[in-house]
């Protein structure tokens, strides 16, 4: 327990968390500080490019673990499954309508890649290692949850015209983040150490600094969202936003242990399961489920669960992963 607290304290004064807090504070104080949309998008392309490539290069270096396929399958299953748990919890705990509950549930099955990146940083500073292909697992977990959300609607009613818009599946599977992450992973794998040497001073050295600036922007956005959506965030919803990642992480823990991953790998699986999407799933929900209220699902995933994971969640998952794997 002391270990968790020390780790959490340590984590809380890392520059990336502090810049996130600065962004939150600036937004609450209604400062006009802002990062141009194009620059924020450019930084997110950079982060996807860098972690994808590094993951691939690490697979090239360590050889292909026999559990890669199994991990991908496990990721897909978790992404399908977690929305059902979230949906049940939401219907019991909160007064959300079927449509809103299904939409929120879809977000929690999917993942937040920035939370994944933050967990990777923590792994690195804890001197641990992790399976490079976890990046591919992350990509795998982005989409299936959306299908679960739509199935929940179709099953439990709610939206009159629910059902798949033509082309939506293709759009989800080929969304830019997935394509860039998977593509960079494959290129990193193909070009291996030689490729990494070529571009290391672009994707390795400045990575933490870019992450700081990016989290500053995330703080600004999350803070502005929370300020706008104060009304939405009643206590049961807030509670859900904190409990659900803890529950999700247990599924990730189970998967990681069954697969026999390293301590770092288990932590990453826990983090992926615990995190909630705020890019791919909201976009899909706007198309397929326009009746669902975006300020509910965005506030929960970006305003509550994301900061929770960043600050307290990851240290907790790490402590658990260490205890359980003995790593």
């Amino acid at each position, binding site marked *: 327990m002391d270990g968790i607290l020390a780790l959490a304290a340590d984590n809380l004064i890392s520059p990336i968390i502090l810049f996130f807090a600065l962004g939150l504070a600036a937004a609450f104080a209604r400062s006009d500080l*802002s990062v*141009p949309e194009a620059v924020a998008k450019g930084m997110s392309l950079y982060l996807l490019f860098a972690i994808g490539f590094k993951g691939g290069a690490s697979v090239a270096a360590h050889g292909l673990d026999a559990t890669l396929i199994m991990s991908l399958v496990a990721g897909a299953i978790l992404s399908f499954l977690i929305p059902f748990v979230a949906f049940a919890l939401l219907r019991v705990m909160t007064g959300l309508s079927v449509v809103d509950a299904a939409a929120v549930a879809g977000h929690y099955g999917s993942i937040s890649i920035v939370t994944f990146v933050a967990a990777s940083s923590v792994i690195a500073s804890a001197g641990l290692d992790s399976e490079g292909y976890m990046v591919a697992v992350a990509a795998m977990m982005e989409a299936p949850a959306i299908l679960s959300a739509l199935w929940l609607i179709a099953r439990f009613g709610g939206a009159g015209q629910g059902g798949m818009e033509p082309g939506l599946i293709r759009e989800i599977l080929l969304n830019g983040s997935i394509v860039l992450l998977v593509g960079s992973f494959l290129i990193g794998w193909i070009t291996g150490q030689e490729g990494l040497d070529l571009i290391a001073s672009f994707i390795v050295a400045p990575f933490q600094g870019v992450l700081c600036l990016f989290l500053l*922007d995330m703080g600004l956005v999350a803070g502005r969202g929370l300020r*706008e959506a104060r009304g939405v965030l009643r206590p049961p919803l807030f509670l859900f936003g904190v409990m659900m990642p803890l529950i999700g992480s247990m599924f990730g823990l189970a998967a990681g242990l069954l697969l026999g991953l390293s301590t770092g790998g288990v932590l990453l699986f826990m983090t992926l399961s615990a995190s909630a999407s*705020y*890019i791919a799933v*909201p976009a899909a929900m*706007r*198309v397929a489920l326009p009746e669902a209220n975006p300020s509910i699902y*965005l506030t929960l995933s970006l305003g509550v669960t994301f900061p929770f994971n960043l600050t307290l969640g990851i240290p907790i998952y790490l402590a658990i992963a260490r205890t359980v794997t003995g790593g």
Partner: protein
Amino acid sequence: MQTHKAKRVEIAIESVMESRLSDALIEAGVTGFTILPVLGGSGRSGRWSREGQVSRAGGMVSVVCIIRPEKLDDLLDAAFSVVDRHIGVVSVLDCEVLRAERF
């Protein structure tokens, strides 16, 4: 300078729906349209601004079509079929155009 009567239709719609709207317009025989970026706005669902968006889901665009008056109904039907369940504001103005052969 010789001008011709036309209609100018403006549709504010979420960015995620843009390609669906474009496809519907082209299918409805609209020969041209122009898409303008939107920085932010306010409506029944509150205020928003492009710089406060992590999500592709958040933004809007404004689609402007200039058409011959007799095509208006087809266009509105097409636009309405997309906008119906979604956020979107559709407005129609009378205007005059140069070079009517282009429309």
